[in-house]
């Protein structure tokens, strides 16, 4: 990969800009309805193949619905689910993480055990059970994802808080007669915002995949919505003859997740004020830099990216 830290990540940037654009203007961009198909037009292959038509550049599915239009409308579902789920999980997780880290003691122990429980839930199983018990619906999917997501935020924010509260300015704020609530919101929170942005971004990929998986399993957004996971599931039976029904939504998903993760990595390198100030050499030595990454695979990748340029 490019070693550049200050370079704007144009590839993921462009992809995501395009994604947001299509999601917002889906109704204007899509050539056909995402849900209404014409049965006489079913299973048309993509444009460049024999029998392909300009009318349906990426072909049609078994109900004659335009694949391109469905992908365009599907981006909307992926984005909205991600935004709401991450918004909810991020708010709850950050709040609990800040309180847990700052208060310590019993509060911390209880909240962190709760987080451990949350992190040890078998994701898919819980999601399937919860959505199966209730009705599969858009809001249920969002809630389930948020439920599975908040511990990641809580864990990370607690770690950051622990590091920040040891800094002298927090002690001095106490000496200045500040309340805990004030210190958390005014002195600690602003210092965790960069990390919060980075983990939020990196979670978008996870949520898109999770939502896709749930839809694929039939417990996600209910049909006939054009969720990408649903489309992949729809095409499963036709893989040998009409592979395009599954392939294109799958590609869209891969491209989205990849871009979001690349952007998250770049954001992490770019937003951390410590990294900005000290430059790369110091970054490799600073233990604080390693703790900035999110719980999952990210720290390793961060270190590797730093190493490239040194």
């Amino acid at each position, binding site marked *: 990969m490019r070693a550049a830290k200050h370079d704007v990540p144009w590839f993921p940037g462009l992809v995501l800009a395009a994604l947001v654009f299509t999601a917002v203007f889906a109704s204007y961009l899509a050539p056909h309805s995402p849900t209404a198909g014409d049965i006489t037009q079913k299973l048309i292959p993509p444009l460049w193949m024999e029998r392909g038509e300009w009318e349906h550049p990426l072909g049609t599915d078994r109900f004659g619905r335009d694949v391109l239009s469905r992908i365009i409308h599907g981006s909307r579902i992926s984005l909205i689910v991600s935004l709401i789920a991450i918004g909810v999980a991020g708010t709850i997780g950050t709040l609990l993480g800040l309180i847990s880290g700052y208060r310590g*003691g019993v509060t911390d122990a209880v909240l962190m055990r709760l987080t451990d429980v949350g992190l040890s839930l078998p994701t898919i199983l819980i999601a399937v059970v919860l959505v199966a018990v209730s009705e599969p619906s858009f809001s249920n999917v969002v809630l389930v994802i948020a439920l599975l997501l908040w511990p990641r935020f809580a864990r990370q924010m607690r770690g950051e808080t622990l590091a920040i509260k040891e*800094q*002298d*300015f927090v*002690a*001095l704020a*106490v*000496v*200045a*007669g*500040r*309340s805990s609530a004030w210190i958390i919101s*005014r*002195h600690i929170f*602003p*210092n965790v*915002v960069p990390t919060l942005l980075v983990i939020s971004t990196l979670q978008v990929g996870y949520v898109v995949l999770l939502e896709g998986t749930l839809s694929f399993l039939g417990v996600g957004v209910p049909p006939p919505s054009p969720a990408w996971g649903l489309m992949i599931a729809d095409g499963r039976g036709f893989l040998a003859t009409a592979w395009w029904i599954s392939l294109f939504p799958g590609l869209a998903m891969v491209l989205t997740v990849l871009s979001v993760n690349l952007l998250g990595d770049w954001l992490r390198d770019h937003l951390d*004020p410590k990294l900005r*100030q000290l430059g790369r050499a110091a970054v490799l030595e600073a233990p604080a830099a390693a703790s900035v990454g999110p719980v999952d695979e990210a720290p390793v990748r961060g270190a590797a990216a730093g190493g490239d340029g040194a």
Partner: protein
Amino acid sequence: MRESSPLLVVEDLKTYFFTRRGVTKAVDGVSFTLHAGETLALVGESGSGKSVTCLSLVRLVPEPAGRIVGGRVLLEGEDLLQKSSAEMRRVRGKKIAMVLQDPLTSLNPALTIGTQVGEVVRLHQGLRGAPLRERVLEALRRLRIPAAGTRLRHYSHQFSGGMRQRVSSAIALSCAPRLLIADEPTTALDVTIQAQYLELLKEVQASAGVAIILVTHDFGIVAAITDRVAVMYAGRIVEMGSTLQVFDNPSHPYTRALLRCLPDVGLKREQLVEIGGQPPDLARLPQGCPFAPRCPERQPICDETYPPSVPVAGGHAASCWAAPGAKARA
């Protein structure tokens, strides 16, 4: 002024740390008084209890391991150790302020300097808008921060170490405290900046009448700006007196040893003098004088009983069996 009632009276302060290894007596019966406008130096080796003494005064001993187990801290006659945490919060901001060693972490990297100074001023004086800005500028100018107007919008990483320490001090002094606790404020500064900073502190003290407790292990600083010195060893004050008295007539062997450790250009010593041995383990203090194992003037009695505080001259006392009259007082 000196004869009036003291600003701060610390009586038999004890702060212990309860760890798995046992009880660590970080501060073990410290007493001193401080008048308004006076500067007291707390000197001693690392781990002698200087910083914990300071933290105890503002009740910021790291809990749950650390606890203040005894004594009184009277600030203007009120016992701080008896106050509820809500009352304590008011005292901290209004009457006591602190400056710490590391100017790098004393300021919040995410907020501008103007915001940080402004918040303290607003909290304690309830000002807003233009008058607030005026007060903030005044606080910064008082510590000679150049171009204070533009500096307001800068973040801490845009300041040099010396400037950061001035900003921290401006914040500390902006609410006109009665007592300023400065825990090694110059340790992280360049030698050239140290003198400048201390000069400034002295100036502000003279104009505001604030009392200062200065923790340091630099005798140069002690000689330059303090009125009185308390030498700490193993959680206790072993010698206390006016700066002149202690420098002219150091009466505890530990003080003498410390003063001998100072490099002296005139004497052209090949090596720096050190104090042999290690500071004692605070969790396993000996029965007698904790300095005895390292003391050149050790006597049999030193290992048995802790020596009483013996007056050497007016306002000057030392805790040592070798001091004249010590045995008579025991």
